[in-house]
């Protein structure tokens, strides 16, 4: 069995809530049958108070074996390096101290969500008075609580399952990959996110693809058009498979009618512009699609705008289609 110790700190608990939506099988049964078990999880385990502290102490001291430390929420090192913004209940030591001790016993350390990966919203107060960081990053700078040199017993840096929240599948897949055949550095991208989900862009499979092709842009929230030009969408730059692997059965941010705010990327919480507005220079969005030369993007955008069918142009600024695709006798068999 692969065993997990799970801790929560400067976050909202939403990654656990999301994880509980795992499909197609119920989470507990799926993990059990894949050979994965929880030693302790703050939202799920029966042990409370001193019983829970005893379990954690046994793991931190090396007396009790465990494999994976999963941490949800940012590391709050303040005020003044004291860690007092989050002391372990019933114990009084900073959560950061517990994470540090447990990380040095773990074979793998997983940051669950963008808070524990990069700092997230806890690091978003101007001046960062919480002294919040991720486990091994502070924004996009390596370091964080454990330091750039940290390697878990299996020889890996912290695995950053970034997202706000995580998709349940990202966590389950990564856990099951470890149980099946282990995890290597080649399985991670430059920010140490599992390629299992981070080798795609949110743009891939976007249901607004036709509007994107023709640069038929939404002007206001609830419009059907592409959200990149005006409403802040970063799906062409954000690494995740959100539109290939739906959320809650059939959803995603784009399917929900609102912008991708690139929640899997370090620093997404403070983009320097309003989330639902696209920053532009001379009328051109600053954040162009990853891998796309700017001149080509501008030229293609101008061409495709001039070629936009009326149906696409009109539907782009409505909240439901007002023109249906034409039905023609095509002769196709």
């Amino acid at each position, binding site marked *: 069995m692969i065993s997990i110790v799970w801790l*929560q700190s*400067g*976050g*909202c*608990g*939403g*990654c656990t*809530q*999301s994880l*509980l*939506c795992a*499909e197609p099988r*119920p989470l*507990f049964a799926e993990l059990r049958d894949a050979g994965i078990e929880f030693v302790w999880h*703050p*939202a*799920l*385990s*029966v*042990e*409370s*108070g001193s019983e*829970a*502290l005893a379990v954690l102490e046994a793991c931190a001291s090396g007396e009790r074996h465990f494999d994976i430390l999963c941490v949800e929420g940012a590391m*709050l090192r303040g*005020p003044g390096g004291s860690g007092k*913004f*989050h002391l*372990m*209940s*019933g*114990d009084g030591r900073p959560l950061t101290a517990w994470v540090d001790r447990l990380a040095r016993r773990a074979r793998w350390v997983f940051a669950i969500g963008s808070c524990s990966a990069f700092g997230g*919203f806890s690091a*978003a*107060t101007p001046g960062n*008075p*919480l002294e919040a960081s991720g486990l091994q990053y502070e924004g996009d700078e390596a370091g964080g609580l454990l330091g750039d040199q940290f390697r878990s017993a299996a020889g890996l840096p912290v695995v950053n399952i970034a997202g*706000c*929240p995580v998709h349940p599948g990202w966590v389950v897949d990564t856990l099951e990959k470890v149980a099946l055949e282990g995890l290597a550095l080649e399985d991670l991208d430059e920010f140490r996110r599992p390629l299992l989900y981070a080798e795609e862009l949110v743009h891939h499979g976007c249901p607004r693809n036709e509007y994107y092709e023709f640069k038929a842009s939404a002007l206001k*929230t*609830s419009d059907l058009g592409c959200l990149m030009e005006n409403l802040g969408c970063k799906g062409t730059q954000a690494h995740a498979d959100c539109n290939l692997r739906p*959320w*809650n*059965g059939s*959803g*995603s941010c*784009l*399917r*929900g*009618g*609102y*912008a991708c*705010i690139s*929640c899997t990327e370090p620093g997404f919480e403070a983009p320097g512009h*309003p*989330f*639902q*507005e696209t920053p532009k220079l001379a009328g051109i969005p600053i954040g162009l699609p990853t891998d796309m030369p700017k001149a080509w993007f501008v030229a293609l955008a101008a061409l495709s705008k001039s070629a936009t069918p009326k149906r696409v142009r009109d539907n782009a600024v409505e*909240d*439901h289609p007002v023109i249906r695709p034409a039905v023609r006798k095509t002769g196709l068999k």
Partner: protein
Amino acid sequence: MRITLGPFNRVEGDLEVHLDLDSAGEVQDARVNSPLFRGFENILIGRAPADALAIVPRICGICSVAQSAAAASALADAMGLTPAPNGVLARNLIQATENLADHLTHFYLFFMPDFARAAYAERSWYPAMADRFAAVKGSAAEEVLPARANFLKMMGFLAGKWPHSLALQPGGSTRAMSAAERIRILALLRDFRAFLEGRLLGDRLEAVSALPSEDALAAWAAGRPGDFPAFLAAAADLGLETLGQGSGCFMSYGAYGLFPAGTWCAGTEASPLDPGRISEDTCHAWLADGDALHPTRGETLVDAEKPDAYTWCKAPRYGGTALEVGALARQLVGAQPLLRDLVLRHGGSVTARVTARMIELATILPAMESWVRELAPGEPFCTHGPQTDEAEGAGLVEAARGSLGHWIAIRRGRIARYQIVAPTTWNFSPRDREGRPGPLEQALVGLPAGEGAPPLVQHVVRSFDPCMVCTVH
């Protein structure tokens, strides 16, 4: 003797409880600590007003859309915007989905596993309860996770995803439902109804919500298969209908047009809500001290070394009174007959709080079915208005756990002040400057605790369904 309970898990977030025990081992005094501070109110200052819609859901992973709804309402209030009728229905559906999913999560994953504790091994009901509700391994977990995940597919249609959606906007929702989707979400509601009726309640929702009194509830539950009837049998054996009485006064901001806003204290008539009477006191929090302030003037300034402080949580009061909020409060303010009867006989208790959530499941799901029927595909789901550069607004909504208020002040087009009073801020409030304890601090007094005591403190604390990440935010 003082004992400290923590980490108090199977609540959302972090909780620590300090208990002073007398020589008989009973609680004389309780102090509740919310040990995590993140400071969302400060994160919001200086941002564009609409950024609140992206930021506040991240306060809480379990009341995420309730936070969205409060921000959207506060912004609509500031903008003077009236949401589209379809948008109101969509918002109701999104909020109700979270609310009911939370009630389910609380009952099965957070609350009931305590009945599978070995301390109860001698009770006649223990073997069946342990088999069904043991944490992670019980048979109920295997059924409830798919029921919950399938119900939350409502969010896939209506809100893109859960938690942390940006679908709720001041003018309604970003996501119009098509005629086909309207049919498909009705099917999801039917699936959830089947779980509630088949496994949780053991009867038609309409039969449960119509139960008029404690006696009728007892007669209905006797020998009935179902997880809620099983709870009632164990609760009666343990006397939970008398345990865990809070302040005896309750508040609701009103929800869905189904449940009214107001306050109610046992033995009186309900009173209309006057939000001007709300204040927050920082006396026992690690926050800069000062007068108790209305949230339109509130501050959140850290003072980590403050003597006599024991929590990061402020103490909200209504005209100086510590109020209990939540499903029970909503139903008492709304004069729901069964819950009024339970509370008038025994006071607000563990049994009453759990029963209130069941009554809400039975009452709100049929309302959701009718909201879906009222959706008009093709009509707008969102209205729009100009941003305001100078304005103030309040958004008062009901989360699963009770009354949630957001107060925003916009200056020069940016957020100048943002104050949040969350449900568990009320329920797990510390003492105020007059020394008046919060509702949980009152509810724990007199309970047996410490070495060898039955886990009654665990039941009482979890009966409030605390959300600690919201409490301090």
